[in-house]
């Protein structure tokens, strides 16, 4: 073995010598020698928990097996990635996953696209030896965008990580522990009632079908056979850039014409382009920006001020602002998204033109997005009769399923053109789908609006690209310097907005897309193929290149040059920002609850005073938290604070979690995850008399198990349960250190020693009697 030098490490993998940089993991070093170690929970853009254990390998001299995803290489290391033992163990691990997973592959939405299924096949799991009890949770179908089926979850934790680490939303946590571990929103509420933005990145990264979009294609099929309505479809720029992947076409192909053709074959009477209203959005949005600048100059900056203006086309981002940054609501452009503008035009302008009533039209949108389903359901975006402008939203995936189920040969369909007048678009409309696209399109038109002249070079490279987290540029227009910033993914948005809030960034116009990569990386896009990872940046770049290719090939590359747009204004809308434009194309936003928590942001005094419930115990909790404010590693005080809360309330009440979350700026999900992990914390009220039977070894061998059974029989509750009258709750204690007098049990703080089974009834009676004596005494133990 040669000497280690220049931060390079030499090692042997499966007998092959390899030199890799120091700090490389075994998994990546193995890829250098052509071995892709089977893996499951690992994701290159997320933290590495080393949890699934599928990628274990043998390292000579190490006592057990090591997870190759997390284990760094070392000089002279000798690694084996395969052996009979390793294969057996990997197979057993995947079998253990399958044993706690529904056996419904054939009817599962991810059949054929499931990483677990693929892995089981790859590793040769051909029999099931360990089958037993399976998890059994309720599914959550309430949210319009994203639905959740914990029974399909294999606890890889990618969703929790993407939601926290990439999106900064922290909707999800792993709650409870051991076999009871489950990924849930706080207090196991529905996603619909949580801080979830519906972005759907959890669906993208999930290896199974634990997260899915709330499907609408059944309803669409139904309506397609309804002869009494006119069926109209629109689809987003990014749909054409990605739908081919679902049919095995290499990423980056523009399938616009085939998609139009397919929609007509499915039964849609008219197919319009969301890119048309992307152009319209630009007209309205650029006009809004120009007006804000003209009215206030470029110095009136900050939350609640006219600038920076924030884009409003990403519906996940909209919900995010409303919950996490309500103070920025005045900064959001009032423009609807292109989808909603198209929806409104179809049922007004076009309907009038066609002599149809709104009720005669069934209008759907095929989107790269799951949050668009949420957007379509928003009350603010309905017509004056309270009916939705867009009747149904389907994702790119759903559209692909519809095409497949009809048996269309998608790849070989003869490309067709959009219908008009709502089908024509410029290059500016196409690039909407990639991060930076809206900004680039808006600047092209703002330039014309401010100067009356076209931009000499419409390519603004600085805002393009899927890798840069925050892209910034300054544009000189008519002697005004306009600073723009672009970001994608809500986690990056937080970084950008925090910098703006702190006054570190002097920007006038910000484009934010909720998903990494922009719409092309939306939660409704085709699943990553066999060789790609979800959210893969190379894949995003290919999809983006399809859109920039469309832009480049267009004769008109600026929205204001779109002749149909000009005609629309002439015939119907008058001019950007007109009264009718406002009615149809603009909307408003309002604060949504629960209020989002951003770790470390701090809360303002205003908020602080309104979060404390009147219960005096909160005052005490507040004092306890305040005492810890400003200490190093303040967040680490969470467990002491939970102890305090339990002492005050008798259990960890939901209001207490809510209070601690706001007060300490710790995401609710994290608090819930922590509180449910530790058995000392009770999430539900406990009985007036808490019976805890010691199940320490000494007690157990002396019959504690029988005592527990007797209590369960007499009280009719299990461990962790509480009797209907709230008098008794039963817990299992782990060694209270009185082994000499085993078996022992405690009722509140009283210890009963050397207890026998017949005594159990007497003990219960004894406490029951106390209740009788004290009448309807309130539970004192709760406030212990």
């Amino acid at each position, binding site marked *: 073995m040669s000497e280690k030098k220049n931060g390079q490490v030499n090692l042997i993998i499966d007998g092959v010598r390899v030199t890799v940089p120091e700090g490389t993991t075994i998994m990546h070093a193995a890829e250098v020698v052509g071995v892709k170690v089977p893996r499951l929970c690992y994701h290159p853009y997320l933290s590495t928990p*080393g*949890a*699934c*254990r*599928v990628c274990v390998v043998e390292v000579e001299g190490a006592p*057990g*097996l*090591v*997870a190759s995803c*997390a284990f760094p290489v070392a000089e002279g290391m000798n690694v084996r990635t395969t052996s009979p*033992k390793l294969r*057996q*163990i990997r197979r*057993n*691990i995947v079998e*253990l996953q399958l*044993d*706690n997973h529904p056996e419904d592959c054939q009817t599962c939405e991810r059949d054929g696209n499931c990483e677990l299924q693929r892995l089981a096949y790859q590793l040769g799991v051909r029999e099931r*030896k*360990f089958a037993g*009890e399976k998890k059994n949770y309720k599914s959550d179908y309430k949210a319009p965008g994203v639905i959740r089926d914990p029974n399909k979850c294999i*606890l890889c934790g990618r969703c929790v990580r993407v939601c926290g680490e990439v999106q900064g939303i922290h909707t999800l946590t*792993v709650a*409870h*522990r*051991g*076999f009871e571990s489950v990924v849930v929103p706080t207090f196991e509420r529905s996603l619909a009632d949580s801080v979830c933005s519906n972005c759907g990145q959890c669906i993208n990264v999930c290896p199974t079908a634990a997260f899915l979009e709330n499907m609408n294609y059944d309803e669409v099929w139904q309506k397609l056979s309804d002869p009494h309505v006119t069926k109209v479809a629109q689809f987003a720029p990014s749909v054409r850039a990605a739908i081919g992947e679902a049919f095995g076409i290499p990423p980056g192909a523009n399938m616009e014409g085939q998609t139009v053709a397919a929609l007509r074959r499915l039964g849609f009477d008219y197919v319009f382009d969301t890119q048309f209203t992307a152009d319209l959005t630009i007209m309205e949005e650029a006009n809004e920006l120009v007006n804000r600048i003209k009215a206030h100059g470029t110095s009136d900056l900050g939350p609640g001020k006219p600038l920076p203006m924030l884009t409003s086309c990403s519906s996940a981002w909209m919900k995010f602002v409303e919950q996490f940054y309500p103070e920025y609501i005045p900064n959001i452009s009032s423009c609807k998204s292109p989808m909603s503008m198209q929806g409104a035009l179809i049922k007004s302008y076009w309907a009038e033109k066609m002599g149809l009533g709104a009720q005669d039209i069934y209008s759907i949108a095929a989107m790269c997005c799951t949050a668009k389903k949420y957007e379509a359901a928003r009350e603010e975006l309905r017509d004056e009769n309270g009916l939705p402008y867009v009747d149904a939203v389907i994702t790119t995936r759903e559209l692909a399923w519809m095409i497949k189920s009809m048996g269309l040969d998608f790849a070989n369909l003869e490309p067709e053109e959009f219908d008009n007048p709502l089908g024509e678009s410029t290059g500016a409309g196409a690039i909407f789908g990639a991060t930076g696209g809206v900004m680039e399109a808006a600047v092209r038109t703002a330039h014309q609006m401010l100067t009356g002249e076209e931009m000499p070079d419409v390519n603004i490279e600085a805002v393009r690209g899927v890798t840069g987290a925050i892209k910034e540029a300054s544009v000189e227009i008519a002697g005004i310097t306009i600073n723009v910033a672009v970001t994608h993914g809500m986690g990056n948005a937080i970084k950008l907005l925090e910098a703006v809030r702190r006054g570190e960034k002097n920007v006038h116009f910000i484009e934010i897309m909720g998903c990494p990569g922009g719409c092309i990386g939306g939660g409704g896009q085709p699943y990553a193929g066999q060789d790609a990872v979800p959210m893969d940046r190379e894949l995003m770049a290919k999809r983006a290149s399809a859109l920039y290719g469309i832009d480049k090939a267009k004769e008109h590359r600026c929205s204001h040059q779109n002749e149909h747009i000009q005609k629309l204004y002439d015939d119907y809308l008058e001019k950007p920002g007109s009264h009718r434009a406002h009615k149809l194309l603009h909307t408003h936003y309002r604060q949504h609850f629960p209020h989002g928590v951003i770790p470390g942001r701090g809360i303002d005094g205003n908020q602080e005073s309104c979060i404390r419930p009147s219960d005096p115990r909160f005052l005490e909790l507040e004092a306890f938290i305040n005492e810890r404010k400003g200490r190093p*590693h303040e*967040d*680490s005080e*969470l*467990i002491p604070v939970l*102890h305090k809360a339990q002492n005050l309330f008798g259990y960890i009440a939901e209001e207490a979690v809510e209070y601690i979350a706001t007060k300490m700026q*710790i995401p609710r999900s*994290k608090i819930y*995850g*922590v509180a449910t*992990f*530790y058995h*000392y*914390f009770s999430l539900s009220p406990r009985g007036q008399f808490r019976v805890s039977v010691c*199940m*320490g*070894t*000494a007690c157990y*061998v*002396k019959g504690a198990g029988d005592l527990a059974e007797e209590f369960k029989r007499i009280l009719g509750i299990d461990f962790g349960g509480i009797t209907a009258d709230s008098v008794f709750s039963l817990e299992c*204690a*782990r*060694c*209270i*250190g*009185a*082994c*000499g*007098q*085993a078996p022992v049990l405690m009722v509140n703080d009283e*210890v009963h020693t050397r207890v026998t*089974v*017949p005594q159990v009834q007497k003990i219960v009676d004894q406490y029951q009697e106390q209740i009788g004596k004290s009448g309807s005494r309130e539970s004192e133990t709760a406030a212990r």
Partner: protein
Amino acid sequence: MSKKNHKHRVVAVCLGPSCRKKGGQALFDNLKVEIQRAHLSESVEVVETGCRGLCARGPVAHVYPDNITYCRLTPNDATRIVQGHLVSGHPMEDKVSHADRIANRSFRLFGDARFFGKQLRLTLRNCGVIDPENIDEYLAVRGYEALAKSLTGMKPEEVIQAMRDSGLRGRGGGGFPTGVKWNFAATQKADTKYIICNADEGDPGAFMDRSAIEGDPHTILEGMAIGGYAIGAHQGYIYIRAEYPLAVKRLEIALEQARAHNLIGKDILGSGFDFDIEVRLGAGAFVCGEETALIHSIEGERGTPRPRPPYPSVEGLWGKPTVINNVETWANVPVIILDGPEWFASIGTADSKGTKVFAVAGKVRNTGLVEVPMGMTLREIVYDVAGGVEGGRSLKAIQTGGPSGGCIPAQYLDTPVDYESLKGIGSIMGSGGLIVMDETTCMVDVAKYFLEFTMNESCGKCTPCREGTKRMYEILERITSGRGEEHDIELLEELGETVKFASLCGLGQTAPNPILSTIRHFRDEYVAHTRQKRCPAGVCTQLITYEINDACIGCGACARKCPVKCISGETRKLHTIDQSKCIKCGECFAACRFDAVTRS
């Protein structure tokens, strides 16, 4: 005793958890009243002490300087102790523990040769001897002398060298050489380093740490301060179970007193060295005994472990180099500094130096804490120290290491207790739980018991432990309820290997030990359960049948006791049990005085 104490006599009442529960507190209170009544307040002091390990015979009190230990006291004995012993000079012979002195290096007391004679109490040297809530008493037994010696006479490297020379290995279960661990942390370049005392004792049946802290909290603080000095840390944390309120209270008192004496805090003893300690409460998660999980818990996270490397000595608490040792390890540190690493290394075996504390429990006469030199055989611990098996039954197995350990059958009783020997027979030293099992213990049931524990305590992060422990438990449940097949034993072995080799942390990696060791040593019991559907120990209720034979005189005692009323028969005639209703509680078996109820 206390330097300030000018009284002639001291009555030290153990108020450890066990003695307290058996009336120790009332005894303590009565003694005070009686002493006042006898006008002895000037000359006799009543003090409370921590556990001295005689839990099975509590409440215990010791009279100094007479050196008489009383056992099995009742609150009413206060009068006799005061009037008979203190006033008249006649000790209560019936309650005196047999007076004998032991060859204990650090001090010279305790009676009861059988229990203490073979012990060597180093880490527990002060437990039951001093008042743990009075720093003066600790100072009187050379307390904080080791810290002073380190700070004033030794360089940090020398302290670490002493640890290495002593051969001390971590007492928490892993047995990693303490000096080596300290050296890793000491050689890291970092602006901040931390010391952690792991007092999250969670093994069911283990209470060493609790007793050690309750009886002698200052030793832990002193050990941690020495460790901080050695590696360059200025902040320590004690992570202790919330279920140990007395220990927490005593730690807080000790910290306050140590700060007041400038033994903890800024510029300790004028040396320029700063070191402070904070107590953090656990919240009921056994896995937090694992060091990376413990760190996460202190950080306010779910207590899940993470893959190592990096080890905590390189990247620990908040990413800083951190030394984590358990209570017993820290308690050894002052001893080593004070009495020298060579002396320490002279105790024990070639690879396991010093002593080990065991919490002996189960079917044994003297339940309690014992501290013995490494290398003592299991037989000596069980028979000479702990008094042998209760009720004269024969020993079947010894379980060491709690849920991470294994069951050792009687034929290995002469195995010396050290890290390697125990590992060699399929168990581990662990943190010191030692449960004695007799012929009435079913080994399959014991394995199931431990699996239930690890299954409930699995953090759920890694697949093999989360899913595997559940499946192993299900198989064991099948076997103990008579639904098992012989093939299940092989399944257990296969699954056990997967969980053992592939789990992320020590909890999962050792979880199959109770199963694998019982299959290895008691395979015939598994076979009896699966092939003959029989539980040889008569424990697995679903495999038991109670029947009434001809010896029945028809007295009806069994029928009256039966909780489900499934025994019928006319008076003075043979009774019968309705097997379809029988819940196999065993009440009839216990009630019959004519051996007419049989269990099979």
